[in-house]
C-alpha cells in the first residue's frame, strides 16, 4: 500500500502547540507511508488540491489527514480523495486538534501524541477496504408532528412544493399556543387573524391529510422509507358525520368540565369544540367528565345531534402511514410553576399565568376579552407582572431563559392599559431581552407611552393581605431597596419546557434531546434544522425557545430540507454497517436482541437459522459486533481487525 499523510496546521489552532513538520517527518518512517506533508489549511481549496496532486504524483492508494474532528471535515476529505480516483473509504483522519492541541500546552508532548495518533490512523488504513454505497428509492411523502404555527408552516410549504403531507396533532384542533393568544408582539396584531387563514389553508389543501386528536405511536424504517403508526384517539364523535354545528355543546349538562383550551380559568361542557375557529371544527367528548361515561346514563348529545355522529362505543384506531421524511414540531408546555410555594404554589386565585391572562384578554376567551379577577370577577386596577418564574432559576433546575417572556409581558402591559385606562401595571424583571427587529422599541414604548413601571429585581414572596389584595414583596436593585406593591392581580411569566412526552417521541424518532426535553439539532450553528437521524428535521420550540417569527422561519427551513431531500429519486445508503459472516454465525440471537434499530432478522439459509442485517435499517452503531460471542458479525470500516491493528500499534509504542 502507498499512503500519504497530511498534518494540518489549522493556522495556529494546531500549529501553535504541535510541531506539525516534525509529525510529518515522523510519519514518513511509518509502514507504507510514501509521502507526508504539513499544509497550513488542509481543508482550504489549495490544501485539497495538494492532496489530489499527491495522490496522482505518488500513486497513493490511501490518505491520512491529521487535523480536526472528523465530524465536520471527514465528508470534505472523502470527496477530495474521491475526486482523485480513490474510494472514499480509503481515507482516515487523526484528530490532533480537539484531542491534542486545544487541550494541552506542552508542545513536545503534543507533538508526540499527534505522531502516535497518526500511526494509529495509518495502521487502521492499512486494513481498510473500498466500500460501495447502495441506492434505494425515496417515498416522497412527509410526516409533520405537531400542528402549531411551526408545524403548520412546514406542512403548508411542503404541500405547496407538491409533497403529500401527513399532519398529526395531539389536541382536537391545530393552532397550538398561537391560537390561544390575543395579540402578538411587536405589532399588536390579532393572533387569530393572522393564524386563522393558515389553519384554513391546512384544512383545504389537497396535499395535506390532518389527523387531529392523534399521536405518533411508533416509527420504524429509515430516511426515505419510514413507517409510522398513528393512534387516532377516540373522540366518541364520528367526525365524518359531525358538522361542527355545536348543538351538542349547548345542551350538554356537564358544564363543570375544566377547559384546557382556556388554560383552566373557566369551565366548559363535557362535549366541546375547542374554539370557534378550530380546525377541524369537530366536537370531542371528554370521557372523564361526561355523565354517559361516569354514570352510564345521559345521552343528551346523542339525542340532540342532527347527524347522529355521537358514538359512545368508539375506540382508539391505529393508522399506518408510509413517509420518506419527518418534521418534528411539537412545541412546548409551561413548566409547573406551583413549585414556587413563596408565590402561593397555585393556591391564590388572583395569581395567574401569562397564558391564562392571554385567554382573559382574548375576545373569544371565557371573559369575552374583559379583564376580571378570578377570585371575585372585579376589574383589577393594579396589575403586577413577574418575569422569569421558572426561567433562569437553577434552584428549581431551570437555568435557561425562556426567550419570549420579556416581549409578551410588554405586550400584555400595553393591552392592560388599552383595556383599563386607569390601571397601573408593574413589571418585575431581571434583564429586558428584546433583541429582535423592532423589539427594543416596543418595550420602550411600553414604558414611555403606556406608563408601565418597570422594576429591576426579582420577587421574593406574594401573599394575600387578607383584605382582597396581594402583597408583592420585590426589590428595586437600581434603588438598592426592597419594594412592596399591593396588587389586585399578579401575572406570572411562567417559563417553558419541552412539550409533554417530547423525550418519549425523541426515542421513537431516534434523535437526541437535552436534559430539559428539547430536541437536539445536528449542529448548533450550521445544521440547526437537521437532527442526527437522516430525514428527521426540527421546527419551532421543540428544538429550543423561539418566538413566532423564528418558529415560522424554522418551519419553512424544515420544509426546504424535505423538498431538497425529495429532489432526488434515489438515496445512497451508508456502507458502514454490520455484516454477518454466515460461516461463523451460530444463530444464538444475541445480536437480534441487542440491536436498538431492529435491523437484524433471523433467516433460514440451507435449513439453518442465521442472522441477517437489513442493510437500509442498520445505523452502524456496532452494538451487535461487541455482543456477538463468535465474532461473526463485523461492522464494515470498523472491523475487529482494523481496531486491533490500532491497538497493536498503540501497545508497541
Amino acid at each position, binding site marked *: 500500500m502507498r499512503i500519504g499523510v497530511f498534518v494540518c496546521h489549522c493556522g495556529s489552532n494546531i500549529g501553535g502547540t504541535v510541531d506539525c513538520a516534525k509529525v510529518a517527518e515522523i510519519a514518513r518512517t511509518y509502514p507504507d507511508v510514501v509521502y507526508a506533508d504539513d499544509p497550513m489549511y488542509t481543508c482550504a481549496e489549495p490544501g485539497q488540491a495538494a492532496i489530489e496532486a499527491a495522490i496522482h504524483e505518488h500513486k497513493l492508494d490511501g490518505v491520512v489527514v491529521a487535523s480536526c474532528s472528523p465530524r465536520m471535515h471527514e465528508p470534505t476529505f472523502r470527496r477530495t480523495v474521491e475526486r482523485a480516483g480513490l474510494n472514499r473509504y480509503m481515507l482516515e483522519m487523526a484528530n490532533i486538534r480537539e484531542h491534542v492541541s486545544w487541550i494541552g500546552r506542552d508542545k513536545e508532548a503534543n507533538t508526540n501524541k499527534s505522531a502516535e495518533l497518526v500511526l494509529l490512523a495509518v495502521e487502521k488504513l492499512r486494513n481498510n477496504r473500498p466500500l460501495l454505497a447502495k441506492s434505494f428509492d425515496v417515498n416522497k411523502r412527509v410526516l409533520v408532528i405537531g400542528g402549531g404555527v411551526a408545524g403548520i408552516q412546514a406542512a403548508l410549504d411542503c404541500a405547496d412544493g407538491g409533497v403529500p403531507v401527513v399532519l398529526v396533532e395531539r389536541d382536537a384542533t391545530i393552532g397550538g399556543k398561537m391560537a390561544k393568544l390575543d395579540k402578538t408582539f411587536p405589532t399588536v396584531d390579532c393572533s387569530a387573524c393572522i393564524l386563522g387563514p393558515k389553519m384554513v389553508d391546512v384544512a383545504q389543501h389537497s396535499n395535506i391529510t390532518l389527523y387531529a386528536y392523534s399521536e405518533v405511536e411508533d416509527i420504524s424504517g429509515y430516511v426515505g422509507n419510514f413507517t409510522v403508526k398513528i393512534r387516532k384517539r377516540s373522540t366518541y364523535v364520528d367526525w365524518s358525520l359531525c358538522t361542527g354545528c355545536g348543538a351538542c355543546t349547548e345542551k350538554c349538562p356537564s358544564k363543570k368540565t375544566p377547559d384546557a383550551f382556556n388554560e383552566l380559568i373557566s369551565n366548559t361542557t363535557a362535549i366541546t369544540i375547542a374554539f370557534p375557529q378550530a380546525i377541524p371544527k369537530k366536537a370531542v367528548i371528554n370521557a372523564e367528565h361526561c355523565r354517559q361515561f361516569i354514570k352510564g346514563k345521559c345521552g343528551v348529545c346523542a339525542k340532540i345531534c342532527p347527524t347522529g355522529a355521537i358514538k359512545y362505543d368508539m375506540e382508539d384506531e391505529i393508522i399506518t402511514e408510509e413517509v420518506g421524511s419527518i418534521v418534528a414540531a411539537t412545541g412546548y408546555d409551561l413548566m409547573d410553576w406551583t413549585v414556587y410555594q413563596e408565590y402561593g*404554589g397555585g393556591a391564590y386565585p388572583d395569581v395567574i399565568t401569562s397564558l391564562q391572562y392571554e385567554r382573559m384578554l382574548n375576545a373569544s376567551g371565557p371573559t369575552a376579552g374583559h379583564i376580571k379577577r378570578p377570585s371575585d370577577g372585579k376589574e383589577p386596577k393594579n396589575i403586577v407582572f413577574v418575569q422569569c418564574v421558572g426561567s433562569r432559576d437553577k434552584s428549581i433546575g431551570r437555568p435557561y431563559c425562556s426567550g419570549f417572556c420579556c416581549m409578551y409581558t410588554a405586550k400584555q402591559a400595553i393591552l392592560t392599559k388599552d383595556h383599563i385606562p386607569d390601571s397601573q401595571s408593574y413589571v418585575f424583571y431581571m434583564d429586558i431581552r428584546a433583541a429582535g427587529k423592532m423589539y427594543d422599541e416596543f418595550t420602550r414604548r411600553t414604558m414611555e407611552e403606556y406608563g408601565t413601571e418597570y422594576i429591576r429585581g426579582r420577587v421574593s414572596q406574594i*401573599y394575600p393581605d*387578607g383584605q382582597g389584595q396581594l402583597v408583592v414583596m420585590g426589590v428595586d436593585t437600581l434603588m438598592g431597596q426592597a419594594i412592596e406593591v399591593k396588587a389586585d392581580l399578579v401575572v406570572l411569566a411562567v417559563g417553558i419546557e419541552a412539550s409533554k412526552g417530547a423525550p418519549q417521541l425523541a426515542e421513537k424518532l431516534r434523535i437526541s434531546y437535552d436534559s430539559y426535553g428539547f430536541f437536539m439539532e445536528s449542529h448548533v450553528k450550521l445544521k440547526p434544522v437537521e437532527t442526527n437521524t437522516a430525514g428527521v428535521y426540527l421546527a419551532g420550540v421543540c428544538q429550543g425557545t423561539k418566538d413566532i417569527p423564528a418558529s415560522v422561519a424554522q418551519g419553512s427551513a424544515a420544509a426546504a430540507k424535505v423538498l431538497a431531500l425529495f429532489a432526488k429519486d434515489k438515496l445512497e445508503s451508508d456502507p458502514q454497517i454490520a455484516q454477518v459472516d454466515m460461516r461463523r454465525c451460530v444463530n444464538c440471537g444475541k445480536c437480534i436482541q441487542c440491536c436498538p434499530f431492529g435491523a437484524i432478522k433471523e433467516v433460514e439459509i440451507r435449513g439453518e437459522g442465521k442472522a441477517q442485517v437489513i442493510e437500509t435499517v442498520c445505523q452502524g452503531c456496532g452494538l451487535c459486533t461487541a455482543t456477538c460471542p463468535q465474532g461473526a458479525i463485523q461492522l464494515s470500516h470498523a472491523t475487529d481487525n482494523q481496531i486491533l491493528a490500532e491497538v497493536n500499534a498503540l501497545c508497541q509504542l
Partner: protein
Amino acid sequence: MNFAYYPGCSARGSSKDYEMSTQAVCKALDMNLVDIPDWNCCGSTPAHAVDTELSAALCVRNLDIAAQQQAELLLTPCPSCLSNLKLASKRMEDPAFRQRVDELLDGPSAKAFPPVTSVMQGIAEAYDMETIAARVRKSLKGLRLAAYYGCLMSRPAEVMNFGDPENPTLMESMLAACGAEMVDFPLKTACCGASFGIPERVMTARNSGRILDLATQLGVDAVIVACPLCQMNLDLRQEQASKEMGTAFRLPVLYFTQMMGIAFGLDHKELGLNKLRVSPDGLIRKLDELRRNSAAADKAAEGGRS
C-alpha cells in the same frame, strides 16, 4: 415510652409555659421525656454568630452525652436548639472540622450521635393524626387559628427535614386533628426579628408587627407557635410591635402544645396559660361557648329524633 430530651435553656425561664405544656401533652400521650443529664446551653444565635466551632463545641457536648446514654433519638422543643444541634452534628461529619471542635472539648467526642428531632415531629412519628384526634376531649372546632413556624424550623430543608421549607404543614395537621380551622398563613416561615429584640428593637417590632398584622387581617382567634423566641416576640413584645405599627394588636399567641393541651382537656395551670402576656381568657371563653352551643344543638337534635 421513654424519649431522650433536651429542654433548652429557655425552658427554665422565658418559655416555662412551653416546657410545662410540652411535658403535659407528652404525658397525656404516654410519651415520657427524660432530660439528658448535665445538658448545657447550645449557644443559641450568639455562639454561631461569633464562631462556628465554638457553637458546635457547645452543641457537641450535649450530643456526646446523648450518645453515651445510647439514646436512639433526641427530642427538643426549641427550633433554635434543634437547628444548632442538627447543624453541629452534620458539620462533625467533616474530619477537619471534627478535630477543631474536639480540641475545644474535654476529650474526643463520640463517633456517631443520635439523630435530633423536634418534639412536634417526635409526636407525629409516634402517633398518627387519628390517635391524636382520639385523645381530644374538648374539640377546637369553631376556632380559626394561624400556625406560625418561624424561620428556623424548616430550613435549611436538607438539614431540618421538616417538609416544604416555604410551607410546612405539620402543625396544621395536628391542630386540625384537634378540630381547629387552620387558615392559610403565608407568613408562617417569615422571621419575627429573632434575638434582636434587645439590641435593635425596631427591627424585631416591625417584623413581628407584620406577622401580627396579617394574622389580625385574617381574623384568627390566636397565633400558634413552636418557638420560644417567636412566642416572646409576638406575645411579650406585642405592645412594642403595636407601637411600631401604629395600632393595638390583641392576639393571643400560644404554643402548639398549649393549644393541644386545651383540646386534650388538660389543666390550664399545667399548661402555663397564666404565663401568657396577652391573656387567652377570651379565647377560652369562646371555645367554652362553642362547645356549650354545640352540646345544646346535639341535644336538640337528639330530642328531635326521639
